[in-house]
C-alpha cells in the first residue's frame, strides 16, 4: 500500500469524512500536513493527543484517529496545559484558529509561551472568524473587510510569532497551505522541539474572507499566498524594501530554554515515564 494510503488508514477517522469545511478551504491541507508531520516525528499513536478549540479548523480533531479533545472557545491551551502536566510523556498538538488563539485565547497563549511548556500550537490563520460567517479577528490585516468591519477594520493586527516570542515561546515557524511540504517539515520540527512551539499556518478562506475582500477564488488565493511568501533563508541579506509585502516563512526562531513540565517533574524528584513509541 502506498505510504499516503497507509497514513489515511491509520491516522484519519475515515468514517467521519467527508469533513464539514467549505470547498477551497485550507484546513484540509493543514490537517494533512499535520498527519504527515506526526508520521515523520515517528511517535507511537498512543502517545499523541490532539487538542483543539472552537472554530472551523478546530473541527480537525474529530477527523484524526488519536485521543482527541475538542475543548471550549479559546481554552485549548489551558486544557492542554493540565493534560501535559498530568501526563508529561504525551505528545500534544493543539489546533487553534486565529481568533480562537489570539483573541479569546490570547491570555492562555502568552502564558503557555511564558512557561515554555512542551505543547505544539498549530495556529491556522485565515484572518477571519469563518464558522460564524466572517468577523474580523486580531489577525485580520488593517483595512480588510469583514461582516463586523464593513468599511475595513481600523484595528492593527498582531504579528503572532513576535507576540509568542516576546512572551517566551522558544520555537516559532510560519508556513502556508500553498506550500504543504514545507508546512509538514515545520510541524515536524516543532514536534521535536522541547518547549512551547508555535506554527502559524496561513490558510485561505475563500468564502468568508476572500470573497468580501475581492481576493479571487481558492486557486487565486493559494497562488497569491505562494507568490507573496519568501523563505527566511532567501530573505536573509535582502533589503527591507525588497521584502515589502512579503510573508517570511520557515523557522523564524528557535531557542533552547528549560521546558516547564520536565523542570516541574525534576523538581519533585519524579521520573517522567519513557515514551513508549518511536
Amino acid at each position: 500500500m502506498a505510504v499516503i494510503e497507509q497514513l489515511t488508514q491509520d491516522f484519519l477517522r475515515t468514517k467521519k469524512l467527508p469533513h464539514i469545511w467549505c470547498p477551497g478551504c485550507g484546513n484540509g491541507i493543514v490537517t494533512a500536513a499535520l498527519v504527515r508531520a506526526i508520521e515523520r516525528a515517528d511517535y507511537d499513536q498512543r502517545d499523541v493527543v490532539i487538542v483543539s478549540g472552537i472554530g472551523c479548523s478546530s473541527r480537525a480533531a474529530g477527523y484524526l484517529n488519536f485521543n482527541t479533545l475538542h475543548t471550549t472557545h479559546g481554552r485549548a491551551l489551558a486544557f492542554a496545559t493540565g493534560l501535559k502536566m498530568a501526563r508529561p510523556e504525551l505528545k500534544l498538538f493543539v489546533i487553534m484558529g486565529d481568533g480562537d488563539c489570539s483573541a479569546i485565547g490570547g491570555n492562555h497563549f502568552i502564558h503557555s509561551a511564558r512557561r515554555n511548556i512542551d505543547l505544539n500550537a498549530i495556529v491556522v490563520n485565515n484572518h477571519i472568524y469563518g464558522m460564524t460567517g466572517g468577523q474580523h479577528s486580531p489577525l485580520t490585516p488593517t483595512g480588510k473587510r469583514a461582516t463586523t468591519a464593513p468599511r475595513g477594520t481600523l484595528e492593527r493586527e498582531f504579528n503572532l510569532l513576535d507576540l509568542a516570542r516576546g512572551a517566551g515561546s522558544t520555537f516559532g515557524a510560519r508556513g502556508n497551505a500553498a506550500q504543504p511540504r514545507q508546512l509538514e517539515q515545520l510541524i515536524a520540527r516543532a514536534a521535536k522541539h522541547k518547549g512551547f512551539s508555535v506554527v502559524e499556518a496561513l490558510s485561505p478562506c475563500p468564502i468568508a474572507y476572500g470573497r468580501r475582500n475581492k481576493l479571487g477564488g481558492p486557486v487565486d488565493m493559494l497562488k497569491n499566498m505562494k507568490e507573496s511568501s519568501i523563505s527566511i533563508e532567501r530573505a536573509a541579506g535582502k533589503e527591507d524594501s525588497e521584502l515589502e509585502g512579503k510573508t517570511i516563512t520557515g523557522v523564524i526562531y528557535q531557542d533552547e530554554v528549560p521546558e516547564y513540565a520536565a523542570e516541574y517533574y525534576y523538581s519533585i524528584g519524579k521520573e517522567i515515564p519513557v515514551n513508549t513509541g518511536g
Partner: protein
Amino acid sequence: MPETKPVLMQGNEACAEGAISAGVRFYAGYPITPSTEVAERMAARLPDLGGVFIQMEDEIASMAAVIGASIGGMRTITATSGPGFSLKQENIGYAIMAEIPCVIVDVQRMGPSTGVPTAPSQGDVMQARWGTHGDHPVIVFSPSSVYETYYLTIAAVNLSQKLRQPVILLLDEVIGHMREKVTIPRDSKLMVEKVSDKVPADWKPYDEKGLTPLVPFGFGHYYHVTGLFHDQYGFPTGDPPQVERSLDRIHEKLEKSRDEVVLTNYIGHKEPRVVIVTYGCSVRSARAVVKKAYWNNRQPVGLLSLQTLWPFPDREVKELAKKADVIIVPEMNMGQIISEVERHVKGEAEVIPLNRYDGEMISPDQISDLMGRWLS
C-alpha cells in the same frame, strides 16, 4: 481501622486535606479571597506526594487545566470564590457535558460583583445550580463544620469519579476560615474508592447502557471528547433523538444514585410542629437553638440540615412537611433555597423565610425568636 490523629485546622485546609485523602494529586487555581488557603495548602503538600500544583493565569484556565488533567487520569480539584466561580462556569458545563470528573470548591463571599470579599454569604446557591448554560445535572455539597468539610470533600471526589460528574463544594467563608478539630486517618489510601481498573472489551466512552469508567488518554483507546452533543463514541451529533437521549442519560445517572448523592441530617422531635431547614454555617446557629428547645425543653421542633443542596433533597423535605405546621428556612441571602422548599412542600406546611444579607451570620437568637412565635 487506620490510626487517627486529631488536629486543629481551618475549613479551607481541611478541604485540601480531604482532597489529598481521596487521592487528588492535581490542583490548578488562581488566587482569590477567601479560598486562597486551599491553594496554599495544596502548593505545600502536592509536590511531596508526587502530585502537580499549578497556578494558572486566570480562573477559566484553572478550570480547563483541571479537566485536562482529569482526562489524563488524575484526580483533580480547584478552589475559588464568587467572582472566580462565575468565570469557571463555561468549563464546568463542559465537564458536565463531556462527563469528566473533577471537584470545584467555591468559598462563598458576599456579592454581587466584588461585594465584600471577606464577609460570609450564602449567595451562590443558585449560581451553583444554574451558573452554566443549558439544562444540566449538578451535585452541590454544603458543609457546616471543618470536620464535615473534610469528609464531604472526600465524598465529592469519590462521587465525581464514580458518576463522571463534576461536584461542587459550597463553603461558607466562616467555615473556610474557622479552626476546629478534625480527625484525619493516617493512611489516606483507605479513603480512595477505586472505580475500575479493567476496561471491558466492548468499552464505549459514553455507553448508553449506563455508567462506564473514564479510560484516560494515552492508553490506546482512541475516542473523542467534545462539548458538543455526541454519540456513544464521543463524536458530534445533532440527531434529535440522540440529543434527547444523551441529555436524559446524564440526568438519570444522578437519579439512579440518589441515595449516595442526597445527604441530609435530621435532629429533634419525631413529630415536630416547627422544623428548620438550612445548610452551611447557618446549621450551627440552628443546631444551638434546636438543642436547647428540644433536648432541654422537649419542645416539638426539629432541624433538617442539608449537606446536599443539589439535587435538592425533595423527599426529605416532603416527609417533614407532612408532620410540621411550619418550616423556617434561614439563609444568608435574600432567599434562594426557600423557593425549592416551597416547591416541594406544596402548601402542606407554612414556609417562613429568615434572611440575613449584611455580611454577618444568622444568630441563634434570630432563629429562636422566630421559632418562639410559632410555638406559642
